[in-house]
């Protein structure tokens, strides 16, 4: 009888199909890290690295040209903070390490935690903006009514293409209360 081989073949077809289904389900989740890698390479959404930049070397400043860096601030719907850049724009040489601040004030009557999300425009320039120190690396707790200067130290990579003259760095402040591990000591200090 040829019944037996047919059964085996059928079982194989089904096994393969089920394998595809499971594989694709996990592929759906794998898209998340894949997308992040893809973004970092291509600069989709102007995502910048969430990590401190360690590659600063002295003496590689490109004095021959300047880049205009604009600072923009937004707050999300659930965020009752005032949030603005300390200065609207800086003109910098590529390779030069500079400092600036953002100013935040908690308008709420309770202690809150914020998380700033960076975005750079044009997106392709994002990988040339290195953040040596950034308040966006951590969540920012702020007591009710308190004000804070949030520091940012950055460098523009000397490798930045010649045709990019203006960069915009935007931070959107989100409410991180729900996800936050509250930093009680910082809050206590601010209150004093």
């Amino acid at each position: 009888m040829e019944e037996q081989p047919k059964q085996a073949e059928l079982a194989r077809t089904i096994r393969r199909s089920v394998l595809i289904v499971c594989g694709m389900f996990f592929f759906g989740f794998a898209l998340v890290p894949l997308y992040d890698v893809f973004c970092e390479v291509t600069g989709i959404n102007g995502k910048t690295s969430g990590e401190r930049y360690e590659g600063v070397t002295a003496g590689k400043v490109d004095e021959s040209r300047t880049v205009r860096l604009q600072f923009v601030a937004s707050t999300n719907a659930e965020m009752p903070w005032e949030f603005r850049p300390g200065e609207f724009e800086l003109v910098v040489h590529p390779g030069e390490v500079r400092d600036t601040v953002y100013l935040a004030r908690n308008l709420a009557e309770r202690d809150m935690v914020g998380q700033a999300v960076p975005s750079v425009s044009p997106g392709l320039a994002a990988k040339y903006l290195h953040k040596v120190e950034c308040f966006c690396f951590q969540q920012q707790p702020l007591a009710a009514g308190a004000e804070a200067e949030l520091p940012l130290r950055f460098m523009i990579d000397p490798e930045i293409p010649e045709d990019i003259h203006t960069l915009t760095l935007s931070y959107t402040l989100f409410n991180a209360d729900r996800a936050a591990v509250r930093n009680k000591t910082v809050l206590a200090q601010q209150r004093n």
Partner: protein
Amino acid sequence: MRFLNPRWSVPAAMLLMMASPIARAAWELNMTEGVTAVSREIFGLHMLIFWICVVIGVVVFGVMFWSIFAHRRSQGAKASQFHESTTVEIIWTVVPFVILIAMAVPSTGALVRIYDTGDADIDIKVNGYQWKWQYEYLGEGVSFFSNLSTPKDEIYNRAEKNENYLLEVDEPLVIPVDKKVRFLVTANDVIHSWWVPELAVKRDAIPGFINEAWTKAEKVGTYRGQCAELCGKDHGFMPIVVEVKSQEDYDAWLLARKELAAKEAELKNKQWTMAELMERGEQVYTKNCAACHQANGQGVAGTFPSLKGTDMMLKDRAGHIDVIINGRPGTMMAAYGPQLSEVDIAAVVTYERNAWGNDTGDMVTPMDIVAIKQGQ
């Protein structure tokens, strides 16, 4: 049932097809050419591809309708039995490919120009909110909201609709003519999309991220657009109006705007009377709150809570102010602390606590709000 006879089916179908391009010309409802170099280029591209499509359509349907007329069984047509021809297959794979390349070349050029956002004269941040736009002139200290100004009576057919129905706002975006303006588009809550057809600018506004777009309007005038991404209940009610002005008019407008902003900032120190607060509060309420909580304060059952006669309105003044400043995370209620001035918050709280028979007599002054915002 004569028209049901299959003999008539095909001519009828053809007539319908032929009617469409004619209709297009006569009713003048094509895409706008717009007022920028980019919009004209897009329009040209659109017409080019449209005519290529028309030609393809005429050829393909022509052949098909010819067989329908000439190769009918009722006309005694005998079916030939050919069913393969590699030559023909190769031809009709290669020819469309060549046509596609011919389309791709100008499209690529246009796209490169659309993406060239560098060296702008003016930078404006466009921020989408549920359901209004905020414009911030970067580096100028000018920032304002732009709300739909069509009255509810027109929307609900109680009054005659005006010619700019649903395409009018209280504060339009103003830009100078012949200057490259760069838009940094973002959103406060959900995804919106900022679209003005005459400028050929459409960019999604995504919370947490900024997108770039630019325009260089060549003609003074008023241009109207709408939000193009479903963003919730009032997606259809957040239009965009752009006024393109001459450089002098623009400068004058900007100056007036700055003076107005300074005056507004002063307002919080003034002594407000109950009547003044109520009047201003009603305006603020209509612009910012009525979309959800309704003009009568009764909200929408199950979705937007009523403000009439509730415990919070009658008894909990501090809680009321807190909700307005901080919003209710996880609900549609946004934090209005950063959006509204101290004066507006005080006015709207006062209004809500005294309107629709709430009559608490509570009066909240701008200085109260200043104190609260500073954490007293």
